[in-house]
C-alpha cells in the first residue's frame, strides 16, 4: 500500500501534507495529555515495534508468506491517536532510511495508513467490543473486524488517490502524467487485492495477537495501564487548530483542482488566468525564449521530423554534458575546500 514517489502529482502530496499537519498536531496534544512525559519513549519504542512487525513473514494457506501491516493492532492496543504517531514514525523511517514508499508521497501514505487505517480499525473494534471484559470473545472478534475494515478502507483511499491522477493531471494530448489508471481501474484493483488477501490476513493476525494477549498479558488490552494515572488529564485548547483547519479547507480544493496543470507549472497564459496578469519578468523571459538562436531546437533548413529529432537530442545531450561538467567542477571545488579545512 506504500505509494512510491512519481505516482502522485506534487500538488496532491502537498494537499495531503496540509491535511495531515492538523491531524498530527492534535495527535501529539492528545497523547501528551494522556501519557504525560512517558509518551516519548512509548511512542518511540511503539514505532520501532510497528516497523519490526511489518517485517514479519506470516505463513498463508497457499504455502507462501505475506506481510501484515499491524496498524489495526496498534489502534487496538494504543488507541487511534497514539497509533497514528507510531505509524507515522515507522513510515518516516521506512521512507527516509530504507526507500520504501516515497519521500513526497509520505504525506499521502500517512493519510491512508496513519490516519484512515487506525481510526477505522479503532471505531470498528469499539463498535463490536463495546465495554466488554478484556477476556471476552467480542474483543478479538472486534479486533479481527477492525483489522480487516481498517486495511480495506485505507486501500480504498489509496485507490481513489491513484485513480484521480489521470483525471486531474495529463498533457494536452491526454497522456496521463502520473499514475495512468482511472478510478474505474485503480479502485477495483486495490480493493480486489485487499479484500481477498491482505484484509483477511490482517484480520487473522490482529485477532490472534489479541487472543494471545488475552491469554498471557491481559493488562495490555486495557489502555489505562499505560497511562500515568496519578495526574488528571489537562484540558487542551484547539482554537488555533480550528483556524488552521478552516484555512486548509478553503485552500485544499484550490490545490487539488488547479485547472489540470500541476502546481507551479503554469505557462504565461495560465498565469494570466490565475493572477489576472502576466508577471513582468515572466513576460520578458518568454519573449527571450522565442529569440533563441535555435528556435524550437531546429537548424535552419531542417524540416523533416528525423533531422529535427536528432537536433533535439544533440542539444539536450550538450545541455546534460554542461550540467555534468558543472557537477564535476563543483566536486573539485568541494575537494579544494576540504583540503583547505584539514
Amino acid at each position: 500500500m506504500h505509494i512510491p514517489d512519481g505516482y502522485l502529482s506534487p500538488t496532491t502530496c502537498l494537499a495531503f501534507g496540509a491535511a495531515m499537519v492538523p491531524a498530527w498536531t492534535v495527535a501529539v496534544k492528545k497523547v501528551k495529555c494522556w501519557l504525560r512525559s512517558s509518551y516519548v519513549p512509548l511512542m518511540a519504542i511503539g514505532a520501532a515495534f510497528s516497523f519490526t512487525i511489518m517485517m514479519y513473514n506470516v505463513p498463508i494457506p497457499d504455502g507462501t508468506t505475506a506481510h501484515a501491516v499491524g496498524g489495526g493492532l496498534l489502534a487496538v492496543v494504543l488507541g487511534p491517536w497514539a497509533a497514528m504517531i507510531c505509524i507515522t514514525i515507522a513510515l518516516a523511517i521506512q521512507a527516509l532510511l530504507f526507500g520504501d514508499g516515497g519521500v513526497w508521497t509520505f504525506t499521502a501514505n500517512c493519510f491512508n495508513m496513519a490516519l484512515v487505517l487506525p481510526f477505522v480499525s479503532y471505531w470498528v473494534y469499539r463498535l463490536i467490543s463495546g465495554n466488554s471484559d478484556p477476556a471476552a470473545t467480542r474483543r478479538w472478534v472486534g479486533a479481527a473486524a477492525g483489522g480487516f475494515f481498517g486495511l480495506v478502507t485505507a486501500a480504498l483511499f489509496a485507490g481513489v488517490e491513484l485513480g484521480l491522477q489521470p483525471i486531474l493531471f495529463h498533457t494536452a494530448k491526454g497522456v496521463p502524467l502520473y499514475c495512468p489508471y482511472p478510478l474505474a481501474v485503480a479502485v477495483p484493483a486495490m480493493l480486489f487485492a485487499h479484500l481477498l488477501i491482505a484484509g483477511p490476513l490482517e484480520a487473522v493476525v490482529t485477532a490472534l495477537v489479541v487472543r494471545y494477549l488475552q491469554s498471557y498479558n491481559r493488562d495490555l488490552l486495557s489502555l489505562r495501564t499505560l497511562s500515568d494515572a496519578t495526574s488528571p488529564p489537562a484540558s487542551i485548547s484547539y482554537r488555533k487548530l480550528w483556524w488552521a483547519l478552516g484555512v486548509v479547507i478553503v485552500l485544499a480544493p484550490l490545490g487539488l483542482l488547479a485547472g489540470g496543470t500541476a502546481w507551479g507549472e503554469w505557462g504565461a497564459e495560465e498565469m494570466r488566468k490565475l493572477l489576472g496578469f502576466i508577471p513582468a519578468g515572466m513576460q520578458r523571459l518568454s519573449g527571450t525564449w522565442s529569440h533563441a538562436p535555435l528556435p524550437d531546437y531546429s537548424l535552419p533548413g531542417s524540416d523533416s521530423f528525423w533531422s529535427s529529432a536528432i537536433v533535439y537530442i544533440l542539444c539536450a545531450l550538450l545541455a546534460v554534458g554542461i550540467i555534468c561538467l558543472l557537477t564535476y567542477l563543483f566536486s573539485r571545488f568541494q575537494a579544494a575546500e576540504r583540503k583547505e579545512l584539514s
Partner: protein
Amino acid sequence: MKPPGFRPLADKQPIPIWLQEKTPFPMPRTAGGRSYRRGFIEKTLASIADVVKNEVFSDFLAGRQGLLQGLDPRVKLISILFLIGTAGLFHHILPLLLFNLWLFWLARSSQIPIKTFAKRVWIVVPLFTGILVFPALFNVVRPGTPLLVLFHFQHAVKLAYWDIPRELAITREGLTAAALLLLRVGASVSLAVLLTLTTRWNVLLKALSVLRIPSVFLTVLEMSYRYIFLLLQTTSDMFMARRSRLAERSNSREERRFVTSAMGTLWGKTTALSHEVHSAMLARGYTGSPRSLFRFEMRPSDWVWMVLVFIIALVFVGGDRVFG
C-alpha cells in the same frame, strides 16, 4: 542417563527413530547443495539481516569523500527533496531520461559504486512499477492511438462499464504514460537512494530539524531508530530459537499462531521497555522537553551547491517546457 528413544551408538544408528520416521526438515542451502523453498522463519531472518546489512553498508558509503557526502546534511536533504519535486514536474520522456543520466553522474561523483546504484534503482523500479503499468500499455485498459496491433477479436464486447474493443493493441498514449511513470519513479528512487547511501542515519534524522518538524517528533524518531535494532535482535532471537528446535516442518496454522504470539510477546516487551526507558530518562533529569546537542555548520560550497541545484533544475524543467 540417556534420553528415551535413543539407541546406543554401537547399533550404528545415532539418529533417534522418531526423527527418522518424520519428514526430514530441509537444512539451509550449502555450497553445491540443493536449494529449497524458504519458510517464514528464514524469510523473516533474512529481511532482518538485510536491514542490518543495509545500515552497515550505507554507513561505509557515507564515510567516503564524495560530492554528496561533503555537503551539509540539511542542504543535502533540502536539495534532494527539491530535486524529487522537480522530477514530478516533467511532461516529456527525453528530459526525464537526461535527468536520470545526470543522477548517475551524481552517484559517480559521490563515489557510490555504479553497479550498486543501478541494481538498487533500475532492477527494483522496472520490476514493481513495470508490472504495475504493463496493462496500461493496451487499449483495453486505456483507449488511444494504436501503435502495434497484437490481436483481432470477432466483435466488440461490453462488460458492465468496461468496453473491450475489436482489436488488442499497444497504444502510443499507453507507451508514453508507462515510460513517463517508470522514468519518474526511477528518478525519485535514485534521489532517495542517493540521500540514504551518503548520509549517516543519525545525522539524517537530525538534519530533519531544518524542515521545521517539531523537536518532539525528531526525538521520537531518533529513539525509535535506536530501538528498532533492539527489537529486530529480539525478533531474530525468537525466530532463531524456534528454528533450532524444529525437527520437522510444522503446519501453517501452527506457524501463524507462532508468528502472532511472537508479535504479542514483542508488544509486551515493548511496553515494559518503554516504562524502563522512561524511568531512566526521569532519573537523568528529563523534564518533558528534549534537547539536541548536535550542531551543523554551513560552508561556502553548501551555498554554491544550493544555487547550482536550483539552476540545474531550472534548465531541466525549462528544457522540458520547450517540448510543449
